[in-house]
């Protein structure tokens, strides 16, 4: 039986296991939308195509599958660019489907024509322009294969209107995709493995770096087994949070620009870094010239292009992290590293005092308190989706994640506006989980229109707006490095409670610390989505901080404990 390209598209998606897509219709994708009604597909109507891509991204990160976003040609497609770049930098598997003008019109500057495969060339793992109905099935299959295999990433399928409308016979091919130039499964030699094993067994002051690759390869258990057997402490990148339990005695905390002071100090003292699925981003390393000079480096990554990109490594090990570690683990000897662990404990000193819950209530509301209370009330079990900025760093510091895929955040691209739509996507991937978007007052307003999506879909996503009336992280940089000249960072905000109500949702404002726990509890108990606005201290800063390009252990420390700041 003949099928149209549009029908083939949906059937191909269903064959890839797709049940939910996030999208926005328009002229060039109309044939696909018309055909969609014949298929068991849940379509979530977004309010802006950027939202669709972040939702697909949140869906993929929370659930571990591939997220799908759909948009029309021209502006629909270009609105996806930020979301695609976000997914690219954080290795998130999404497939974006865009309509394109008819193939005979391509190149004529037709209405709503944009060369979106050209535009997205450097920010997709791969992309396709499909201009014949008979190519649709193959392209979908390849797109999903490329998106989720190897180092995951976004793939864009641009399908011309005539390819959606034309009919052809379709034969479904269930064989595995083979692309002659695509090698997602490279392996290192046995000799390299042996060098890594010897280095681990001989190390006196090793640290494991837990990166996003732990989640992507499902290596949580083997990382934990290796850390426990060899008694190696674990430091995390922002995207590695959740890859190793925060409550584990070997957990050190986050590294890097806003990492814990003792973690950065320990890195500078270490004699071996075991980099697991991370990429030595400049926010992690600080000044490369002085970075971890005493340490040999073993770097395990599925993408060999990451080796020696920023930091020269001694043993690069290509492969899927879980498979690599499963081969290494039996050869790792049980190590007594108590003197190293004691030395790190000593580095903590007074800066380890982070029991902010027991600090007296000074009458001020600090974002750190809000996040920490959110963690306590939710038993650390919620999926927390953050935006970008100060609240993001406070979340990483004060919400302790024991489970993988429970912190979803834009790490690499640092995309403001990510949280709200990504939280919606996470909720669709994990409908039984409690989902919170933690977002600043600035970032929230970039994609706040997606509140309408929450209302229309009647989903339970709670939103905590950390409102300090500033673009807080930029203000902090202005305070530290630009002589407190607050250029374009103060915000005049709407009444977020009324805004929530305008969308038919519930809103609540919290101004006192005593109101945080009741507010969070009330939001959890409420049947629908609740927007909780926390009016926090306006000029609070994230500490510690490694200034951009400074040595990793040259941190700006909190001038005094938070309780004293609060008493000012």
């Amino acid at each position: 039986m003949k099928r149209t390209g549009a029908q083939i598209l949906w059937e191909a998606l269903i064959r890839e296991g797709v049940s939910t897509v996030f999208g926005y219709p328009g002229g060039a994708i109309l044939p696909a939308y018309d055909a969609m009604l014949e298929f068991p597909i849940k379509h979530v109507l977004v309010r802006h195509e950027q939202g669709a891509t972040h939702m697909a991204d949140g869906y993929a990160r929370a659930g571990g599958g591939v997220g799908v976003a759909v948009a029309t040609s021209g502006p629909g497609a270009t609105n996806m660019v930020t979301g695609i770049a976000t997914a690219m930098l954080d290795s998130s598997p999404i497939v974006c489907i865009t309509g394109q003008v008819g193939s005979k019109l391509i190149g004529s500057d037709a209405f709503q024509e944009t060369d979106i495969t050209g535009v997205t060339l450097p920010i997709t793992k791969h992309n396709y322009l499909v201009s014949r109905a008979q190519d649709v099935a193959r392209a979908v299959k390849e797109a999903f294969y490329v998106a989720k295999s190897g180092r995951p990433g976004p793939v864009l399928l641009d399908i011309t209107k005539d390819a959606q409308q034309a009919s052809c016979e379709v034969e479904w091919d269930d064989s595995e995709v083979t692309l002659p130039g695509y090698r997602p499964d490279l392996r290192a030699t046995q000799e390299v493995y042996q060098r890594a094993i010897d280095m681990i067994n001989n190390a006196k002051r090793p640290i494991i770096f837990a990166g996003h690759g732990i989640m992507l390869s499902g290596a949580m258990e083997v990382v934990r087994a290796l850390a426990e057997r060899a008694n190696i402490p674990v430091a995390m990148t922002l995207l590695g949070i959740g890859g190793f339990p925060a409550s584990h005695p070997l957990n050190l905390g986050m590294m890097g620009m806003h990492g814990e002071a003792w973690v950065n100090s320990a890195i500078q003292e270490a004699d071996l870094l075991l980099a697991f699925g991370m990429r030595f981003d400049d926010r992690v390393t600080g000044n490369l010239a002085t970075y971890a000079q005493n340490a040999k480096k073993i770097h395990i990554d599925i993408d060999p292009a990451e080796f020696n990109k920023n930091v020269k490594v001694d043993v690069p090990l290509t492969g899927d992290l879980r498979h690599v570690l499963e081969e290494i683990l039996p050869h790792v000897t049980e190590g007594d590293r108590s003197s190293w662990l004691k030395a790190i404990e000593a580095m903590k000193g007074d800066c380890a005092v982070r029991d902010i819950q027991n600090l007296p209530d000074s009458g001020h509301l600090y974002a750190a308190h809000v996040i920490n209370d959110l963690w306590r009330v939710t038993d650390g079990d919620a999926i927390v989706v953050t935006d970008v900025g100060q609240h993001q760093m406070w979340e990483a510091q004060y919400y302790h994640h024991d489970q993988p895929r429970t912190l979803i955040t834009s790490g690499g691209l640092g995309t403001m506006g990510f949280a709200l739509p990504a939280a919606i996507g996470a909720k669709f991937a994990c409908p039984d989980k409690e989902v919170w978007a933690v977002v600043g007052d600035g970032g929230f307003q970039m994609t706040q229109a997606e509140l309408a999506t929450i209302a229309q879909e009647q989903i339970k996503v709670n939103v905590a707006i950390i409102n300090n009336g500033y673009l807080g992280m930029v203000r902090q940089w202005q305070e530290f490095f630009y002589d407190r000249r607050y250029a374009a960072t103060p915000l005049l905000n709407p009444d977020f409670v009324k805004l929530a109500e305008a969308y038919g949702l519930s809103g609540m404002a919290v101004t006192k610390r005593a109101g945080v726990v009741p507010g969070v509890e009330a939001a959890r108990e409420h049947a629908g989505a609740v927007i909780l606005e926390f009016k926090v201290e306006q000029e609070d800063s994230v500490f510690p901080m490694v200034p951009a390009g400074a040595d990793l252990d040259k941190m700006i420390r909190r001038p005094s404990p938070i309780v004293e700041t609060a008493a000012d």
Partner: protein
Amino acid sequence: MRHTFAVHVEDTPGVLNRVASLFRRRAFNIESLTVGHTETAGVSRMTIVADTDDHGALRLEANLYKLVNVLRVDDITVRPSVQRDLAMIKVAATPETRTHVMQLVDVFRARVIDVAPDSVIIEATGPEDKIDGLVEVLRQYGVIEMVRTGCVAMARGPKIGGLGDGVERGTQVADEAPADDSNVSYSV
């Protein structure tokens, strides 16, 4: 220093753009790029000369392999290879100076392929420095216009392996000495 890459790619629309975009995005300068068909249908070969150090060359190679349409990358800088550039040079040549020009052409083993009353077109092939030398001595007569292909290069000796036939998916193990700090074997 200069690195010369022989890059085999699938002959699909946009592949030149993907490769060139990679160099631009990763902030590498392309000195020359040529592309044409190969002995295998559906496979094109690019010769790309880039100005970068050894570390940059390894990064380029690794990133080129990430392009789905790239089949094989060889940095032939380190191998014995033959490199050729083809130039057509239109030189002002009056009846008085034409003999001199033709003598120079002979010295450089080039050929005159067109003669007009006031000019000649010279075709020359060879390593780039030879072409540069020829152009230099012709300048005094007046180079009217010139076109060059850029470098094409080929490693000497028998061809190593084939295309797309050296990859064992899932079981591939590097078996040749790794170059510097890369321990990965590609489709060799």
